[in-house]
């Protein structure tokens, strides 16, 4: 049995301007120690998928409309607050995009670091502080015993992200969800942070979910990659297969827009158009309007393409105009 099993998750936001179908039927599973990537543009629903599972979206306006999510065999969708609180920060750790704003500027690093231990393990302050210092050393912060008493603003962006990683892993969680962990960082620091996550994962055997808009980050890092668009997965395969044999036009377009893969001197490739407005129901294929192959005759406008396993372990939204074998 997989560690995390999600079936047909749907999360909608009921706003004044209509219902936004942020996550509209997502299924996947995650095994112990596995690393998966979820790739998509901002607004594709990749963060909401995981936030809603863990009860981290504001409700209202957010609402989980259906599906199931089993963590270690236990259904966590619609689980009462206290149940989720015991899982969050204890068995599932999270790090976020912007380390500048994700740490509380009013509290010392020390008190933020030891908080998970105090809450989940009823650990005393002195012991927790020892653990915190050790954890800081493990994420590569020099002079940890002294710096643990600093405030966040005394740390650089990369250092803060290290602190976030230490804080997320201090309880030895089974899953680490990393939501765009390098997007807000300098390019030079990005690799260090990714290497750090990798190294800590190896030591602890944690399963990692990497949420990113950057296909390049995912390539060497993940075992399996899910590409998300307009609230659904459009393609999913092992990392290797997805890079060598992408099927869906959106995956190809994402790949084409990685700057390093383009020829020098040519204008950067960008995907034409904008993601669809999710506050109106999408009838046909969500990506069809943005692909050059779009042919209304081939592409039924009244039903969404089926998500099918086309090759072993390779799933794709079977839209006649977007998928070319």
């Amino acid at each position, binding site marked *: 049995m997989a560690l995390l099993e999600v079936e047909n998750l749907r999360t909608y936001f009921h706003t004044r301007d209509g219902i936004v179908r942020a996550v509209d039927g997502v299924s996947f599973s995650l095994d112990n120690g596995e690393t998966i990537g979820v790739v998509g543009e901002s607004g594709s629903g990749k963060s909401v998928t995981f936030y809603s599972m863990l009860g*981290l979206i504001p409700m*209202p306006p957010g609402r989980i409309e259906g599906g199931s999510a089993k963590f270690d065999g236990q259904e966590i969708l619609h689980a009462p607050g206290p149940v989720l*609180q015991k899982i*969050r*920060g204890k068995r599932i750790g999270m790090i976020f995009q912007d380390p500048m704003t*994700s*740490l509380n500027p*009013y509290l010392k690093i020390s008190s933020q670091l030891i908080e998970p231990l105090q809450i989940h393990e009823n650990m005393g302050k002195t012991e927790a502080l020892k653990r915190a210092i050790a954890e800081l050393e493990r994420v590569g912060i020099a002079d940890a015993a002294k710096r643990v008493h600093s405030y966040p*603003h005394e740390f650089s962006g990369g250092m803060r992200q290290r602190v976030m990683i230490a*804080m997320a892993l201090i309880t030895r969680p089974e899953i680490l969800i990393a939501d765009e962990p390098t997007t807000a960082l300098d390019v030079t620091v990005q690799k260090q942070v990714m290497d750090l996550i990798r190294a800590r994962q190896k030591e602890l055997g944690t399963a990692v979910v990497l949420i990113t808009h950057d296909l390049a980050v995912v390539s060497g890092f993940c075992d399996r990659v899910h590409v998300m668009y307009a609230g659904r997965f459009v393609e999913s395969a092992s990392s290797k297969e997805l890079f060598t044999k992408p099927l869906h036009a959106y995956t190809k377009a994402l790949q084409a827009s990685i700057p390093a893969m383009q020829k020098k001197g040519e204008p950067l490739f960008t995907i034409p158009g904008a993601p669809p407005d999710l506050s109106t129901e999408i009838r046909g294929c969500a990506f069809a309007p943005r692909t050059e192959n779009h042919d209304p005759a081939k592409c039924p406008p009244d039903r969404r393409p089926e998500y099918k396993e086309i090759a072993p372990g390779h799933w794709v939204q079977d839209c006649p105009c977007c998928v070319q074998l």
Partner: protein
Amino acid sequence: MFRFLLNRLLQSIVALIAIISITFFLARAAPGGPFLEEKAIPPHIVKQMEAYYGLDKPLPVQWLTYMGNFIQGDLGPSFGNKGYTVNEVIAQGLPVSLTIGLGGLLIALGIGVPIGIIAAARQNQFADYSLMSLAMMGICLPTFVTGPLLSIYLGIKFGWFNATGWNEPSDWFLPSLTLGVFYAAYIARLSRGGILDILRQDYVRTARAKGVPEWRIMVRHTLRGGLLPVVIYLGPAISGLISGSFIVENIFELPGLGTHFIVATTNRDYTLILGTVAVYAVLILTMNFLVDIAQVYLNPRLRSSTAPEKA
């Protein structure tokens, strides 16, 4: 940080001198004088009295003399209250005003902050809407409406308190309540807004992701930043409480500093006007200074930088 506070202190002293000087020249520029109203006094006696009090000297000289005495804590004789010095009048009125002002502030914080916290925690729910409508009503009911109502109902109709006067220990309550209700409403709105601002921050999401229970998020992660606007507001609130005390002392017929001040302005009692204004200015500036210190204390980011964010 110490440079910043020193800067603020110097600025306060400049402001104090400015306030006293402006009041000094403003009062003198106005037509009329302390002795002109009393027609019974013959002109040469007025002259004599003016000479006695030094009112015949050139204005800048009078100003220098006044400032010199002020530094030594001597505010001069009161023209309106014969036989009393300004220091004595203030010593009598200030405790009254301070008591009701402080009482008002405590009531305002005691009611306002909890209401703000509850409303923020129950954002967009029934409790939020009803508490905030109540607060808005409180803001729109000025002290001169609530004061008489409280005086009549709690004072005369129910007889729980004295409707007016300053004789019994419990006499501070109605005036303070009148002052406090208005500010409670304002503080409730401020604290709700401040807390909601913090609840929207990324680091609150981090705390939730750590599995921190909601009450602990409120207490440990939110209140400190969320109540900062309230702390900052305490500075201007003092000015407001002072002008509120004019009204409240009028309604409840209290022998406070505000009453003395209003009487002094109508009597052209120059020294008493200046004295009361100086006391008010010191109160306001001290409070602003304390707020600055509190702000630096509460916000670690300010401790290493030089200037606080302005409200």
